[in-house]
């Protein structure tokens, strides 16, 4: 028991096992288990009210879990909260800012809260404002910022202490398409620096290209291996669009190839991109009029939808 705990602590930057928390009679998180390795981005996915934010608050050391074990950068938020806070950059889902203060003042004061010297904090604040493309707002009060700009300020604020772990709660909310692409690039860069990033989001297509790993949550529980298998399965699904679906059905049946007959088109499973090329060539050789052939959409989205269906 102790041996496994130690192993988990030394490998993962964030680990949670069997974490639970209730508010009065409401069980917000029933049983959550996850790990985030340094240098990777992990998505936390689930419907509204499934306990994502509560789990993030417990990981950040703001809420005390009723049960379970949490380690962040090797420290337990219950006993070594200061060390955890030093290691975490937390971007909350609620956008709050000090209305009267400028963006640079906000970041400088935040940095001083992390015991940086005033000079150091201002330098770092100015650099981060550049990173999130808010440099021109450095000396404007934060009340003039739009929702998306506040979101970006919040990201800069979370990075003030150069954290080893970054927890981002709905970071893409309210961002315009360009900012989303920039956010994706920024998150990948941060992971490349060795930071462990945990992102919760509803914009699943966005996450597909950003994350290395995904944790699904439903009704306060993280879903384990069976959902991982579903993600892996979803990644092999290729959708075929043809001018003659009956012909395709006949060809596939004749070739004894399993397929899902969906309204939007047939779906087959291929092991790799090479297999896909081979499958397409074979379909062409059978004279099937294929006009579209490709992955059947976001793997995360597909998994999410199957999970949602099970929920109902």
């Amino acid at each position, binding site marked *: 028991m102790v041996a496994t705990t130690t192993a988990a602590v030394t490998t993962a930057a964030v680990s949670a096992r069997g974490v639970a928390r209730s508010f009065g009679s409401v069980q917000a998180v029933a049983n959550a288990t996850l790990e985030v390795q340094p240098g990777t981005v992990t998505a936390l996915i689930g419907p509204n009210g499934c306990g994502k934010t509560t789990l993030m608050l417990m990981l950040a050391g703001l*809420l005390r879990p009723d049960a379970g074990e949490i380690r962040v950068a090797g420290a337990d938020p219950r006993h070594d909260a*200061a060390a955890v806070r030093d290691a975490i950059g937390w971007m909350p889902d609620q956008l709050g800012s000090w209305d009267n203060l400028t963006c640079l003042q906000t970041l400088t004061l935040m940095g001083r809260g992390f015991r940086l010297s005033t000079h150091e904090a201002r330098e770092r604040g100015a650099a981060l404002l550049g990173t999130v493309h808010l440099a021109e707002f450095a000396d404007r009060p934060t009340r003039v910022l739009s929702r998306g700009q506040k979101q970006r300020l919040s990201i800069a604020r979370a990075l003030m202490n150069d954290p080893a772990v970054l927890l981002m709660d709905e970071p893409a909310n309210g961002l315009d398409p360009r900012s989303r692409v920039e956010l994706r690039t920024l998150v990948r860069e941060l992971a490349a620096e060795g930071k462990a990033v945990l992102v919760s989001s509803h914009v699943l297509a966005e996450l597909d290209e950003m994350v290395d790993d995904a944790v699904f949550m439903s009704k306060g529980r993280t879903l384990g291996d069976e959902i991982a298998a579903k993600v892996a399965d979803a990644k092999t699904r290729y959708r075929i669009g043809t001018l003659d679906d009956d012909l395709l059905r006949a060809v596939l049946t004749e070739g004894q190839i399993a397929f899902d007959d969906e309204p939007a088109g047939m779906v087959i499973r291929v092991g790799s991109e090479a297999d896909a090329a081979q499958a397409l060539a074979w379909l062409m050789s059978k004279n099937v009029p294929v006009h579209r052939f490709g992955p059947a959409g976001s793997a995360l989205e597909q998994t999410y939808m199957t999970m949602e269906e099970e929920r109902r």
Partner: protein
Amino acid sequence: MTVLDDTPAAAPAPGPAPASSRRPVKGNPWLPTLRGTLLVTQIELMRRRPTAKGWIFYGLLFAGIMAIGMFAAAQSDGSKNSMLLELVLVMVLGAGLLVAPSLSATSLNGDSSEGVLAPLQMTRLTAGDLAVGKLLASWLFALAVLLTTTPLLVYAFSRSGWHWDELLLVVAVILLVVLTATAVGLAWSALAARAVASVSLAHLTTGFLLLGTLLLFFFTQPLISVTVTETSRSFDWDQFTVEQEAAVDAWYMNGDVAAFDEVDVHDITCSVQDGGWEHGVARTERTAWLLLANPVVLIGESSPIVNYLTWDEDGRAAPGLFAEMHRAVSDARIGPSEEELQDSVSWDECADLVASVTGDYSAYEDNGWEQEQEANSVYPRAPWLGLGVQAALLLGSMWIVIARLRVPYKKLRQGTRVA
């Protein structure tokens, strides 16, 4: 449970080393630090920096106070008067008690609903830093009110007959009372979910201390009263001889005492009438502590003693508000005298007659109330109970605030989220 209390593994933390001037830490410190407290105070003051309109309003207020001061100076006849100083001090207290708790009572639940509290809790600032920093920031506004009135205060002081150390003491006590009210406001802000509720509760607490203690003192008086009976003695006409009756008649009708040359006035007999008047005398010395818990009484008990008889020779102004308050409170603390608690004869017809015949009115020349007033006015001051109440409220409130600000939260305020 053993799993929950499992101590963290001793293995070194992975990941990049923290930046520059920061050192790794252990535990979950909550005590306020000087550096953190000053940072929080600075943040709060920067956030509440007055706008242009705010400065204009402040300027008008300052001009108004100056005008009152100049008006008072023009009206002055040069004699000593402590009333103006006392009014300025009461004004500073009143403004402080209104402004500072209003600010502090919105500063935790308000920040929480704006979503700017949790990001600060996620820094290295401790719960104590946040609590004390916010307390100081709100309290500094009361200090600003005091500084605004300084010119008026100095002028009023110059005519008050007070000594400067006495003024400093009273000002310090006023600032303590305001600090306590600010801390109480902050505690309500940490307990109540909504700003409206915490501001109301903060002012109700102040109101209870100011008025509630007085009301309790008066409403509990029947409980501590003893009943005394006052009776009267009148002429016993049935027992009189003919000569005695004629002599008393003559005195009665036209004040003629000549007849008492023959009749010995001391032989005239009187007797107690039936019944008498029963009434309660409150033993206020048993409940006077209620008054001492009142913050305004505390300020009276911290102000200089002014003797009601000798103030002029003592180089003092005539007794003002605070001296009068001290006298009244001392009266309650001393309570009724032994004589007042015993059944007494309020009117004796025979004694009246003897006095008018012999011309000896010494028994009627009662200047007891003047002596009592002087004794009350110089009775030792009793600020300690009031100071104790203030200190207990201050420390208790800050304890609540720090306990409620410590993360990870075990319990949340009813109807709120973490933010």
